[in-house]
């Protein structure tokens, strides 16, 4: 870990000001991913701004019937919130499918969105990696690709986004609320928040330096039966091989997003029109143009079968 200076801030304005003063700074809250990466010097901020004491830890109802989730709401609290369990079950399910009790007690809503890839080549600093070291090349291409992306990847990067929560947020059409050092705010639709790798895989999101996530807002509940089916090698404490987040209405219509297949939570709205016709039809559109490797081609079939299981479950599920 490179040496850094540390400061604790009390307000978003202080946080923004501190970030503006320090071009090499990073915010820290839960720390579960940032500190992990700092130990390996994959992340090397020169200044760390502790935002964990900001009062962004509330879950509030919005005037239009949605929920505004403070950036610092811990994963445990979010998953346990009565309103989330009742109206946004897919989110609660996704949260508890991720990590462990200890990590969920630490990890924040904003931090979860900002997780970096778990590609093993990103983690090994001896290996070229465009995400870690732009322009150095991608070691994963031609290497061990079983856990990596099958769609939306580029010649520069085939990493996946590891978050479960973000997949549920995507299916719920969340927006990410931020404040920038100049005091301006914006609300970024979750669909636009994470980037595809293209030729700049080092940029995971559209955030700019010093831009602080203050909340994630969910629109009003959409009803339906909520599912988050995560497939992994061991039964818990593992990242997804693939995951399917779905909200299925009584008439068979609904929404679906995938984790573990791309550089961002993967959702193609056009595919959802096929939901009444079943998993095969949905998957054909959802994963059209997929370019898997020999080692991860199984993900295509796995997505289709997992979605099929979800749709079968939905038929018997209370709405």
């Amino acid at each position: 870990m490179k040496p850094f200076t540390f400061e604790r801030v009390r307000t978003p304005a202080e946080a923004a000001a501190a970030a503006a003063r320090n071009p090499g700074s990073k915010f820290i809250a839960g720390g579960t991913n940032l500190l992990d990466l700092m130990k390996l010097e994959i992340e090397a901020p020169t200044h760390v701004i502790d935002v964990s004491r900001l009062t962004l830890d509330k879950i509030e109802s919005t005037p239009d019937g949605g929920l505004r989730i403070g950036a610092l709401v811990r994963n445990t609290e979010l998953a346990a919130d009565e309103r989330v369990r009742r109206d946004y079950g897919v989110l609660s399910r996704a949260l508890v499918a991720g990590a462990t009790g200890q990590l969920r007690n630490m990890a924040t809503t904003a931090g979860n969105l900002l997780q970096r890839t778990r590609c093993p080549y990103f983690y090994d600093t001896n290996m070229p990696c465009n995400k870690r070291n732009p322009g150095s090349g991608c070691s994963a291409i031609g290497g061990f690709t079983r856990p990596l992306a099958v769609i939306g990847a580029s010649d520069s990067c085939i990493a996946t986004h590891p978050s479960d929560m973000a997949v549920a947020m995507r299916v719920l059409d969340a927006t990410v609320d931020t404040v920038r050092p100049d005091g301006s705010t914006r609300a970024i639709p979750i669909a636009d928040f994470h980037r595809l790798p293209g030729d700049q895989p080092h940029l995971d999101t559209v955030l700019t330096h010093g831009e602080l996530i203050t909340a994630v807002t969910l629109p009003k509940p959409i009803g339906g039966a909520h599912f988050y089916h995560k497939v992994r090698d061991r039964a818990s404490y593992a990242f997804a091989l693939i995951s399917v987040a779905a909200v299925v209405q009584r008439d068979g219509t609904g929404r679906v997003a995938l984790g573990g297949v791309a550089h961002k939570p993967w959702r193609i709205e056009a595919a959802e029109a096929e939901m009444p016709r079943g998993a095969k039809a949905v998957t054909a559109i959802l994963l059209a143009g997929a370019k898997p490797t020999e080692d991860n081609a199984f993900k295509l079939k796995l997505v289709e079968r997992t979605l099929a299981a979800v749709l079968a479950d939905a038929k018997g599920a209370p709405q």
Partner: protein
Amino acid sequence: MQRPDELEVTRRELLVAGTATVAATIVPTLGRADVPATQPAPATAPSTESKVAFTVNGKSYQLEVDTRTTLLDALREHLHLTGSKKGCDHGQCGACTVIVGGRRVLSCLSLALMHEGDSITTIEGLGTPQNLHPMQAAFIKHDGFQCGYCTPGQICSAVAMLDEVKSGIPSHATVDLTVSPKLTDTELRERMSGNICRCGAYSNIVEAITEVAGRGK
């Protein structure tokens, strides 16, 4: 090593020996334990060495640490509370689990400086060989450990996990999100999955925790 005529105290001495020396960086500040954790912590001035004050097992400490020092290393290397283990240092094993403000967390993925004013409980704070916490006693009775290295983390995790169930926090094993979870075996196993035991004492650990949970009903 101990002489046989010291037998009665031997096992206790073995424990005490590890904490006999106190690092120069520690200034115990007894009496600060009542600082409310909710009070906003003061802003700090930028430096690569910083002060932090927190309580561990009811005792207050003020430390001056490298900004890079994790809570785990503060406990192990500065306070010589080596019960919390470093199995991976990357949040991948659970051996470093401690309880902060009533919640189990991984001390390896947390900066010491982020714990200003926090109340921390480690395995040493749960019980001692002479005065075991019920969970520690149950682990012994059910042989819920072998090499012992993941054990403090398992026990801290188990104690806090039971509280999580009581407060209705759901898990991946929770069938119905709209009702309070019950501590079934499946729930217990899922909730303890953040603590890896390579010796494979899981089946016994589950029995130990189940016994303690049943007693608390």
